């Protein structure tokens, strides 16, 4: 990573703004029904709605004043004035996105991270202030980072890398940031939700990690275009990026089944721009990354939200655990005290077209033959822009990323136990729909015989063993081996320590599905494997 001068930072602002404007100009030329007034009005409409419903935003006053001005100028603006207004909106968006992002700070941050992390842990637990470095070391032991680390170290020199992790928890970004540091990789820039910056500790940490700001409440297309163009341009500058391709945390606990292709598509765009600008290292590499936790900080909120979405009116969301430092602390303490691990797996890299990439940066087809990938973006020997084509390439890339997620996902005792128990709930009430199943299961007083839980776990482990051998999934409990009793007891122990209501509880020789919703959540991680 090279540092940017303040002049270069200004250049980002100018370049991205002019690119977004140019794209709108091109649209105006092409489509007689398109006009700039619509773009500005659309942004005005969405921003006013946002300001109406979210009055607590710290920038509320200044935003409101800005849009009032836009509205005033808009009503009788000439075409030229319209273009100026549009430019000023893009500029404002960009300033917020770039935020405190300062490449110098960013570079320094690489060295600051361990202290910041330690600070994170300590601040949340004042009583532990003095043992800060101990708990950090302890956390370190519980974080297993593995996968194609050497390849990625090489690719970082050959081209620019986009890291695309699975997303389960707000803990993911700190965990990935720390993992990168741990294995000696540089930090990646990424877009973090504005809300994360409101927590002063996390916010500070975000900035130093190289995060730029994303306001998910801004719904207008202009904002999305600006954001996408910003990410594309930083890739062209050689800045490694991190996107969560699922967009948000998985509500159901399942692996991502549909990816947001917008940001993923920046790879093929940046690559083409690099080719056109005859950059020395034009290539963009996409590295999928999977995270596995035995317990998920926000599991209760997420599954409730997921059920609410699917069943519309049936469930109502409450609070988010991430806003409660006590919960985070409790979570980390549970994790460390129980000798449980977080797995971070860096997968084999892909090119922006979804092909596999060798450590030397060469893309290969399914038969292992090298491909001249520049030809994917050429027609008649020229680099040729084609939005529909690139969207399709990105769709293929997305499919390849999802296949990789499934292959490198690490299953843990809690997932397996949850899968067994939820399956048993379903078999007991074969005819109920999901919502009634959850209600009935929580109410039932008999529970399941521990012996049967063991037998079924044994069967599941046998299937899993075969899948692991075929490299279709990973298994994280090497420590426990393939011993069903050990897996069940580990799962029950973990279930008991953190959640307000444990997903399942053992009483005597019976196991009770005390929170069937959480069982569903943890078992969803095993969905792709038909266990």
């Amino acid at each position, binding site marked *: 990573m090279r540092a940017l001068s303040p002049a270069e930072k200004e250049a980002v602002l100018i370049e991205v703004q002019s690119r977004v404007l140019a794209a709108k100009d091109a649209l105006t030329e092409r489509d007689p029904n398109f006009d700039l007034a619509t773009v500005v009005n659309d942004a005005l409409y969405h921003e006013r709605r946002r300001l109406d419903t979210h009055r607590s935003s710290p920038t509320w006053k200044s935003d409101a004043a800005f849009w009032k001005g836009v509205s005033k100028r808009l009503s009788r603006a000439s075409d030229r004035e319209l273009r100026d207004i549009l430019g000023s909106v893009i500029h404002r968006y960009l300033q917020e996105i770039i935020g405190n992002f300062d490449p110098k700070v960013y570079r320094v941050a690489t060295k600051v991270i361990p202290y910041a992390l330690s600070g994170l842990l300590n601040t949340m637990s004042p009583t532990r202030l003095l043992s800060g470095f101990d708990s950090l070391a302890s956390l370190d032991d519980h974080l297993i980072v593995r996968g194609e680390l050497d390849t990625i170290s090489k690719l970082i020199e050959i081209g620019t890398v986009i890291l695309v992790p699975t997303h389960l928890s707000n803990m993911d970004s700190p965990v990935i940031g720390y993992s990168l540091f741990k294995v000696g990789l540089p930090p990646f820039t990424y877009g973090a939700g504005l809300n994360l910056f409101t927590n002063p500790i996390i916010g500070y940490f975000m900035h130093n990690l190289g995060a730029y700001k994303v306001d998910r409440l801004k719904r207008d297309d202009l904002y999305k275009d600006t954001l996408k163009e910003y990410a594309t341009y930083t890739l062209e500058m050689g800045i490694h990026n991190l996107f969560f391709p699922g967009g948000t945390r998985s509500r159901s606990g399942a692996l991502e089944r549909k990816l947001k292709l917008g940001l993923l598509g920046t790879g093929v765009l940046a690559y083409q721009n690099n080719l056109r600008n005859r950059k020395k290292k034009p290539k963009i590499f996409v590295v999928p990354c999977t995270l596995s936790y035995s317990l998920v900080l926000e599991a209760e909120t997420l599954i409730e939200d997921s059920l609410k979405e699917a069943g519309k009116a049936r469930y109502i969301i409450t609070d988010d655990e991430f806003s409660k430092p006590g919960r985070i602390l409790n979570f980390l303490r549970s994790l460390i005290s129980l000798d449980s691990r977080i797995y971070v797996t860096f997968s084999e890299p892909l090119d922006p077209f979804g092909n596999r990439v060798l450590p030397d940066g060469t893309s290969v087809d*399914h038969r292992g*033959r090298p491909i001249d990938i520049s030809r994917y973006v050429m*027609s008649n020997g020229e680099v040729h822009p*084609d939005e*529909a*084509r690139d969207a*399709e390439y990105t769709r*293929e890339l997305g499919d390849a990323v999802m296949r990789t997620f499934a292959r490198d996902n690490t299953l843990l005792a809690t997932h397996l136990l949850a899968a067994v128990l939820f399956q048993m709930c379903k078999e007991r009430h074969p005819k109920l729909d999901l919502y009634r199943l959850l209600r009935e299961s929580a109410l039932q007083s008999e529970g399941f015989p521990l012996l049967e839980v063991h037998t079924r776990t044994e069967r599941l482990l046998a299937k899993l063993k075969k899948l692991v051998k075929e490299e279709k999934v990973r298994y994280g409990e090497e420590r426990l081996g393939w011993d069903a009793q050990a897996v069940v007891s580990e799962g029950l122990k973990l279930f008991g320590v953190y959640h307000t209501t444990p997903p399942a509880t053992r009483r005597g020789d019976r196991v009770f599905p005390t929170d069937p919703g959480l069982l569903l959540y943890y078992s969803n991680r095993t969905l792709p494997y038909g266990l």
Partner: protein
Amino acid sequence: MATRARTKIATRPPADTVGIVGAGSWGTTLAAHVAGAGHGTILWDVDPAVIREIHAKHTNSRSLPKVRLDRAIHATSDLGELASATSTLVLAVPSTAMRAVVTALGPHVRADHLVIHTAKGLEARQRRADDQIIRDETCCKRFGVLSGPNLAPEVLAQQPSATVIASRYPEVIETAQRFFVRPFFRVYGSTDVVGVEIGAAVKNVLSLAMGFVAGMGLGQNTRSLIVTRGLAEMIRIGVRMGADPATFNGIAGIGDLIGSGMSRESANFAVGELIAHGRKVEAAMREVGHFAEGVPTADALHTLLERAPVDAPLSRGVYQVLYQGAATSEVLESLMTRPPTMETNAHPTA
């Protein structure tokens, strides 16, 4: 691999030249069609004798006896030569030969090749559609499928016809239209690749059912009942596989079913008719003198439907007749005795 036919390749740039893979009756017809419009045309076949004959006499007596071919058609049996002189390839090989031909083509193609396939039906062994084969065996990503009610003799006779080119890549659609559109030949674009492929496969199976009905001596009422239910079934299967239901209302769905599935010119129809008369499947095919693609497709479809269940009584009925010895009359009767229902918003219930 193939014997190299030592003839000069057209000197046009690759972008103006179509490579057609397979000199069967449809591949040769397409070559004649494209060359007739003045485009560069290279025809490949695995059989060097066919290549030699095209060069020497401008005929292809194996596939299109009595037809005189355009002298501008270049023929080769060298896939490397074919690939380097073109940037658009049309795969006009039967589904049974698809995997072998594409595997052989794999080392020669480039990332900028546009690949259009025309094969119909599902590959029997693997139950994977043709585009998946292209993805598995080559580095090509920009591909499409050409399908429609196009009887080769009628295209050669320049009778009004229409076909569909389906691709997720506008470039492939535009290229196919540039090469194939002629005043008597309309080429519609579609983005629904899966729909067009499923349409072609299900059509072959339904043509057998239409043959059964004819063979049982039943008239227009029954025929239209089968077409309507068949269309509904095609839509249900397609939607289950991720297709756009509107595709089946088009050229590649109902159009193909009516155009090439409802008369004895269709091998499937003719074989179905003989089966209803009591012939065994193989005997019927021998008697008709053509292979009926619907026979293996019914098997492949049956397997597909076991994994992804859809209400498909006609396809199931055809499978039962072909592979489980059911009588055509039994199958028809079981279809008629379902309780009366509503034609739903999506499609008629069967």
